[in-house]
Each structure stands twice: as C-alpha cells, then as structure tokens.
C-alpha cells in the first residue's frame, strides 16, 4: 500500500521525465563535487567524528551553553530574545521592527524563518520583506517555498526564471542566460539593500564562549543586508551552538565541502555585537526543539548543520523534488524531523526512502539518518495514522504467512502459478504499485527449495 502523502506529488514530478532526469543529474553533480572535496582531506572521517562528538556534548549541556552565549552576546552589546514557538518568534521580530517604525526588511537565507512562516506574518502587517539570496528571491517572486535548503530554486529551469524575471523585475522577454539574469537580480536587489531599514539573517553557528554568531553565504547578501541598515536581527534555533571558538574550525571545514563542494563559503561572517551605532538582536527559538532533545530515539537529529548533502545524495529526493515532501526541510533529514512535529500530517515521509543509507555516509555530523527513518516507520505503524492502516494490515498478513511453513509454501505455489498464467490486467492491476514501471520477474522453473532438496545430484 502506498501512502498518498509524498507519493502523489512525487509521481507528478516524475511524470515529466525530462525534468526529473535533469533534476536528478544536477543534484548528482553537487554530490560528486562534495565527494571530490571530502576525498582531498585525509582527515575527513576524523573531522566528521569530532563534529558529531562536539554536537553530542553541546546537546547534553544546551541550557548552560545558551546561558553562556546570552551572557557573552549581551556583554558585546547584542540584545538576546527568547521564543518558545513560531508565533512568539514572529511577534518578537515584528515588535523590533514596529517599535522603530521599520517597514523595509531585507533577509538572507534562514530556514528557521521559513519554518515559522515569518514572511507572510510580516507582510500581513505592512512590512516589505525581500529575500536576497538569489534562489530565495526567485522562489519568493514565484510565490513558492524553497525546494531545497541550500539550492532553493533547483527545481526551476532557466527559461522559467527568465520568464518570471521578465514579468516581475523587467528583464528582456525570452532572455534566459544565467549571467544576464543574475546581473539583473543584482541591480534589483542592490536597490533593496540600500533602501532597507533592517536586515535579518539566519545563523549557521553561535559560539557560547564568545557570544558571536556566524553566517555563511556565497553571494555576500548577509553582509550587504547587515552592513548598511542599522538594525540586524539574527534568528537561530537553540541547537545552533558550539561551545568554543576553536570548534568552528571543524564545522566550517565540513559545511561548504558537504553542501556545494567548496572548501569554505565565499563569506564566513562573524558577528560579535552590533556595528558602531547600530543594533544586533539575536532571537533564540525553541519551536519543538526541546521536545526533540527529550526524545532519546531522535535527539541526534539536532546535530544537523543544514548542509543539504543528504538531499543531494538521496535517490528519492533527486527523482521526486523537494516540494513533494510538503515541509520546510525536505529529504532524509526533513523526513526524520517532520513526523516529530505532526505525525498525522507527515506520516508518509519516512517511507519516502529506500533505506539505502547513502545519507548516513555523507552526513558531516554522522546523524544515523536511515536508522532514524526506520525508527519513525516503526513508531508510525505502531500508532498508525490514516494512510498507514493498509500497511499495518499487510504486515499482519505477512507475519502470518512468514510464520507458518505450510502457508509460506502454499503462498509460493499460488504466486508462481499466478505469475505464469494470471491475466496481465489482473497481474498489473492497481494493487501492483511495484509493477507500474517494472515487469514482474518470471516465475522460476525450479524453486530454491527444490534445488536444496535435490542438491548433490546432477553435479558429477
């Protein structure tokens, strides 16, 4: 039984074969770049191990490190805010803007604000919100969510972006050259940067020891957005901390190599307090993270540094696209995180995986993703949501058949008979999801059981 959640939009995505293959190939190239960069460092595995240990330690003392971070950040002139959930986060950000009469905000990438749906919240209250990462701006203008956490517009062809830019920012009709389109976006967004009254960024890492936040971009949009408007708001989940400054070296070496196959992002910006005459606000957000921390089975997922490597390598993600997951964070890590938020809404995601384990192999912080996916399946089937009742029934029948020799042998005989003589319309009926794109195997002339029984004969 297939669960309709992920499978239906995935089938829609895959129906356009040309695009699905192109998407698959584009992400595979990123994966290969990552492999080359990882292979250049003999100490790669040691770095991953160290990163995993630092994260595990930080998670075991998260409250203390957050207090230390707050103390240090405050002593350097930052103002620290705390938000229990998405709504409180949005209210805090809006409050900072409203108190200062700010109506023009530029943003660099922040998956946390996507998770909190900050943009619609602010726009509804009269704030102009401009995403400035090129990929983010593309999907914002298209009225779509990002389909990938590092490559937000990876699902779009350049012709579509050309058409979109023609409609929204006035590029020439029919123009689709990436250099031309990027140049047009640069001019369009430069105006927004210079007119902005505040800049909002995500946070890649926060350092407990120094009270600093680190933001990584290739475009320089976080730096443009925080060096000209006087107010900088940095939004971070509680899990973004590392204990010491020196720990950054480990994560910085891993992050860009894993994400895009670069040795380091073009800009790795370290903010300690506000710029002269300006303000720095750091909003620390829980929104379900403390609950995840308390969950022994899945707390390891809090180590995620959002590099996207698990998406680029995932055969299901590459062939189904990020939007088919229906959640802010798609791919293997999203499929582990989302059911923790709302099992009923995201019950299908842990099944959108072949459990091949490739995600585990590339994860820079060694999250055992496929173990987590399997555990999610176990929990979802034990307390099934609507789409999984069928699966539960199937598993019961399977247990019965596999638990009885007589039933198993009878089942095998019936299946072989059916494979040989069953009419095609029945063999490939709607029940046979597996057979939609594949031929069933031919029934063997001799079963393994027969071969075993007569072993030794006929072999000289």
């Amino acid at each position, binding site marked *: 039984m297939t669960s309709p959640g992920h499978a239906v939009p995935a089938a829609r995505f895959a129906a356009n074969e040309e695009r699905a293959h192109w998407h698959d190939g584009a992400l595979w190239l*990123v994966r290969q770049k990552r492999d080359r960069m990882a292979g250049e460092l003999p100490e790669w595995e040691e770095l991953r191990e160290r990163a995993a240990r630092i994260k595990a330690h930080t998670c075991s003392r998260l409250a203390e490190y957050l207090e230390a971070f707050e103390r240090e950040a405050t002593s350097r002139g930052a103002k620290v805010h705390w938000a229990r959930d998405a709504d409180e986060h949005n209210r805090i950000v809006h409050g900072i803007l409203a108190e200062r009469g700010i109506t023009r905000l530029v943003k660099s990438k922040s998956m946390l604000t996507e998770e909190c749906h900050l943009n619609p919240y602010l726009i509804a209250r009269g704030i102009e919100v401009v995403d400035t990462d090129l990929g983010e701006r593309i999907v914002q203008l298209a009225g779509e969510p990002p389909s990938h956490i590092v*490559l937000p517009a990876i699902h779009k062809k350049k012709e579509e972006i050309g058409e979109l830019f023609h409609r929204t920012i006035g590029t020439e009709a029919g123009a689709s050259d990436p250099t031309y389109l990027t140049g047009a976006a640069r001019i369009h967004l430069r105006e927004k940067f210079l007119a902005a009254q505040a800049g909002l960024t995500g946070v890649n890492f926060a350092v407990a020891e120094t009270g600093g936040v680190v933001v990584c971009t290739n475009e320089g949009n976080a730096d443009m957005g925080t*060096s000209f408007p006087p107010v900088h708001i940095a939004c971070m989940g509680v899990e973004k901390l590392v204990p010491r400054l020196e720990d950054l070296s480990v994560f910085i070496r891993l992050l860009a190599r894993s994400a895009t196959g670069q040795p380091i992002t073009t800009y790795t910006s370290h903010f300690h307090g506000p710029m002269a005459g300006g303000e720095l606000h750091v909003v620390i957000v829980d929104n379900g993270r403390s609950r995840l921390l308390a969950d022994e089975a899945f707390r390891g997922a809090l180590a995620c540094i959002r590099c996207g490597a698990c998406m680029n390598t995932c055969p299901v993600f590459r062939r189904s696209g990020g939007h088919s997951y229906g959640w802010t964070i798609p791919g293997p890590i999203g499929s582990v995180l989302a059911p923790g938020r709302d099992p009923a809404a995201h019950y299908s995601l842990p099944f959108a995986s072949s459990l091949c384990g490739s995600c585990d192999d590339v994860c820079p912080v060694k999250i055992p993703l496929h173990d987590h996916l399997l555990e999610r399946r176990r929990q979802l089937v034990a307390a099934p949501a609507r789409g999984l009742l069928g699966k539960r029934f199937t598993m019961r029948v399977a247990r019965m058949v596999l638990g009885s020799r007589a039933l198993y042998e009878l089942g095998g005989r019936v299946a072989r008979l059916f494979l040989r003589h069953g009419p095609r319309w029945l063999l490939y009926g709607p029940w046979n999801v597996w057979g939609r794109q594949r031929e069933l195997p031919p029934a063997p002339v001799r079963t393994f059981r027969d071969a075993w029984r007569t072993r030794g004969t006929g072999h000289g």
Partner: protein
Amino acid sequence: MASREEILAALRGAAVPAQPLPAEPPAAAVRYPDPVARLADAVRAVGGGMVRTPSAAELAREVAALAGRVHATRIVSEVPEAGGGTLRLTEVADPHDLEGVQLAVLPGAFAVAETGAVWLPTAAFRHRGVFVIAEHLALVVRADAIVNDMHEAYARLRFDGPGFGVFIDGPSKTADIEQALVIGAHGPRSCTVFVVG
C-alpha cells in the same frame, strides 16, 4: 523572561546523558611545504587571483595596475603602502555613500592555504561593509602571515569586544540558476589577494 525560563527548563528537563567534549586538539592536518604556492592554487580554484609582490613599492604598482584593468576611479584604500585611494572611509559619513566604489584595497590579517580564505577584521574601518559593496576587492596579506588550515586560523582569532570579522574566499558568486556559476552576485566581481614579502 517567562519564555527564557521555560525554554531553559525544558532543555534541562530533557536530561540528556553527559557526553564529553573532545579535549585533545584536532589531529595535525596537511602541512604545506610551500604555503604561498598552495594559497595561489586555492585562491584561483575559487575564482580569485593572487599576486606575489616582493616589496611595498611593487605592491603599489600592482594595485595601480589592477585599478587600471577594472577602470576604477573611485578607490578606497586602507593599506597606505598600496596607494592612497581616492576616497577615505573616515570622510564618508553614511555607508550608503559607498555605493559606486569600484575598488577597495583592504588589509587582511592572514590567509589560509587550505581554503584560500583571507581573514578580514573590520574594527579599524569606519564602515565595515566596504568589503562587500565595492565592485572589485583587493586584499593585502604578508607572506609570513599564511597559516596552513582552518584550525590554525581559528587559533589566531580573538574576540574580546564587539566587532565584525569575515573570512573572504574569492569573489561573490552564485549558482542558483541551473547550477551555472556566476561571479559577482551581490558583492565584488573580482577578488585579488596580494601577498607581500
């Protein structure tokens, strides 16, 4: 403050078993026999350029040549030996007036051979955003200020007060349209590292 206490209590309540923080330093990574040569390769690999200049006089000549190549007439220089520039940051009241600066010549504290990145502290600048708003960027580092890897780099950093610093690795870039690499996204369209000495 209620939220703060609630969040901290919830995190403490999660009762995660203690895990040790790795205390030993990271194992020695690659030590480059010729860090300058490696730096040149690393900078070029990320779309930047590197120029080695033996002396300050040579530096000024090379920077002037760069300014000529990019047709820069509005130049900010925070490196006196590289030439004065045409605009002093201290004379610019509003950072927005830096729009239109064609070349910024800035002093990097050190460079990292592993990645090609240059550490730029900005405490001495009146406007920190000059490194990203300029159309072209020149970063000047001393030849004896090249570290092997990011571990050595972070061991050098100190953040005692408020301040902003950034590792810069080549020109601003994006590949957000069909993964096609485009140099000059929001920041400088070129980045040249001058190694002096």
